[in-house]
């Protein structure tokens, strides 16, 4: 069973022990962020803050999908589902999108503020990390925009900060889908770009918004495919963009083509605050609407946040599909949460330098957000980090096994190891570690044999050991 809205998902999380309600008074100013951050780093349950200072009647749900357990539940799977099975489930459902259905209205229309009535401070916008540039209302959000050339509607997850009562500033990356349409279409026309910022939709709509999904494809249909039922959408307040009708909060506005305001710095999904500030976009907010007792969703970003799970999950499947399209004999791809969407592990049935260099070329040809790619043979389980580390340490030649691609204009502006100048120009590099045996090594005479139970003993002996294991009193 998947969930038609956030609140039924929360009920399921509580039932599985993956949600704790925090009823004590908590300050939106840093305290809420500090508690959420610590819980995230401990892989703990999601926290639902029901008593937020200055905001009676509102609540905050922190890091809804920041563990594999919660992501499995969102997909309608058992909480203890294996990570590989979660990947396979996503991969299967991603291939079966369901177009959204439009309905007249959603619950968020219960409270509407337009024009001069708009006051963003009416809504909880936590000060997430000490040293951030401001209060972020858009962290676990779903931002709807449109390419007027084709009519294509984009869902993405982009950060937005309070500037004043009617203004948000944000930093959708220039190379993001929203940033691309803004730069290529709206700015040349000197037209404002309508956006609708959705907070607190059902979990799979947010997952779809975070997904690595090709420009021009419909994330709303992806969300429907993941859920197995179409997403119901309706008009956002004061604009004609369609948003999930189950949203808790919707903020409508326009990215202005001729105005800017201070944004950032912000502690990001990389686990660091890297110093990008004052180079984003400004949104003139035209309307806000919210359900009664709105539940805000917060991605308290940093090490092991929501992106570490959902962007990694969807990114891994996207990488796999892309490599398959380029003829790479790929078996599995995993972006470990600890890698903060900077590291990919790719297993192939046939490796070697030619394959590894092709993987590197394919994954850096457009947006190059990954900086480390570890390529392993198919006998290595990419989801088992002990196996991956063993392969990396023993099979990667420290000279011949390392390949580097450098680029400019398409790198990751949030990679902490880059200099400020590199981040500003989207310059950087990606390294591929070839942890595969050279294809010209004869498997009978040259490829080293793994000294492991499953590899170095005959099947008969292995079976004999397994059968007498318990009799020997072994755990």
């Amino acid at each position, binding site marked *: 069973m998947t969930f038609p809205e956030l*609140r039924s998902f*929360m*009920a399921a999380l*509580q*039932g599985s022990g993956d949600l*704790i*309600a*925090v*009823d*004590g*008074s*908590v*300050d939106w*100013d840093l305290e809420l962020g500090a*508690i959420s951050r610590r819980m995230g780093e401990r892989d703990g349950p999601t926290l639902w803050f*029901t*008593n937020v*200072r*200055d*905001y*009676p*009647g*509102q609540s905050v749900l922190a890091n809804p999908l920041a563990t594999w357990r919660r992501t499995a539940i969102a997909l309608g799977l058992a909480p203890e589902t294996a990570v590989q099975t979660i990947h396979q489930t996503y991969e299967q459902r991603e291939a079966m999108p369901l177009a959204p259905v439009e309905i007249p209205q959603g619950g968020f229309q219960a409270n509407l503020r337009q024009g001069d009535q708009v006051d963003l*401070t009416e809504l909880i916008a936590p*000060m997430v*990390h*000490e*040293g*951030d*540039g*401001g*209060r972020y209302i858009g962290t676990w959000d779903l931002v709807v925009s449109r390419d007027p050339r084709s009519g294509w509607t984009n869902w993405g997850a982009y950060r937005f900060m*309070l*500037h*004043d*009562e009617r*203004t948000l500033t944000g930093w959708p990356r220039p190379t993001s889908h929203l*940033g691309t349409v*803004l*730069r290529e279409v709206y700015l040349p026309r000197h037209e404002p770009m309508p956006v609708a910022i959705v907070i607190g939709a059902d979990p799979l709509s947010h997952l779809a918004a975070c997904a690595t999904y090709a420009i021009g494809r419909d994330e709303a249909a992806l969300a429907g495919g993941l859920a197995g039922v179409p997403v119901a959408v309706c008009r956002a307040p004061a604009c004609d963009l369609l948003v999930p009708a189950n949203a808790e909060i919707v903020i409508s506005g326009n*990215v202005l*083509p*001729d*105005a*800017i*305001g*201070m944004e950032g*710095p912000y502690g990001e999904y990389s686990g660091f*605050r*890297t*110093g*990008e*500030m*004052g*180079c*984003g*976009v*400004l949104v003139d907010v035209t309307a806000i609407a919210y359900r009664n*007792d709105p539940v805000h969703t917060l991605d308290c970003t940093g090490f092991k946040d929501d992106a570490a799970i959902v962007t990694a999950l969807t990114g891994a499947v996207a990488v796999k599909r892309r490599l398959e399209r380029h003829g790479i004999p790929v078996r599995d791809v995993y972006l470990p949460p600890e890698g903060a969407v900077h590291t990919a592990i790719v297993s192939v049935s046939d490796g070697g330098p030619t394959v590894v260099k092709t993987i590197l070329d394919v994954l850096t040809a457009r947006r190059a957000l990954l900086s480390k790619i570890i390529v392993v043979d198919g006998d290595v389980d990419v989801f088992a980090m002990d196996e991956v580390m063993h392969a990396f340490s023993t099979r990667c030649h420290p000279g011949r096994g390392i390949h580097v691609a450098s680029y400019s204009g398409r790198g990751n502006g949030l990679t902490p190891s880059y200099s*400020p100048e590199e981040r500003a120009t989207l310059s950087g590099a990606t390294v591929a570690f070839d942890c595969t045996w050279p294809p010209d090594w004869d498997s009978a005479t040259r490829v080293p044999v793994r000294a492991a139970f499953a590899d170095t003993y005959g099947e008969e002996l292995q079976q004999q050991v397994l059968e007498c294991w318990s009799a020997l009193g072994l755990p």
Partner: protein
Amino acid sequence: MSRAVDRTFLPEHTSTGGELMNTNQPATEAGYETFVRNPSEMHPASDLALVLRDLAPGRRKYLAQNVIAHIVCADTRPSGFAPLRMRTAVGNEVPGPWWVRVQTVLPARLPGAPYTSVFDALDAFPRD
């Protein structure tokens, strides 16, 4: 929105309960906060274009104001100045104490195209 949070959608009520210690209450006059690109260039000066965030407690805390201001680094507070917390681009605090006096309030929205520098836009404003 003055009512308690609706929790009827949860099957059972479990919570941590208790009141948490709030450690974030301002002990003194709140003042302002600003972020700078190069702290070494922030010698005491007038006619500096800055973005100030109001640190007064309440729902409007951290809202922004673009200003031309006079800043001072001194152990004692000059007359007419407010406390200023200065931070670097990565959010670390610049040792002070700093003080600020607003000379001119600039438009809330600065002229410029998306993805261009706010600091360049601020610097473009004429000074007295």
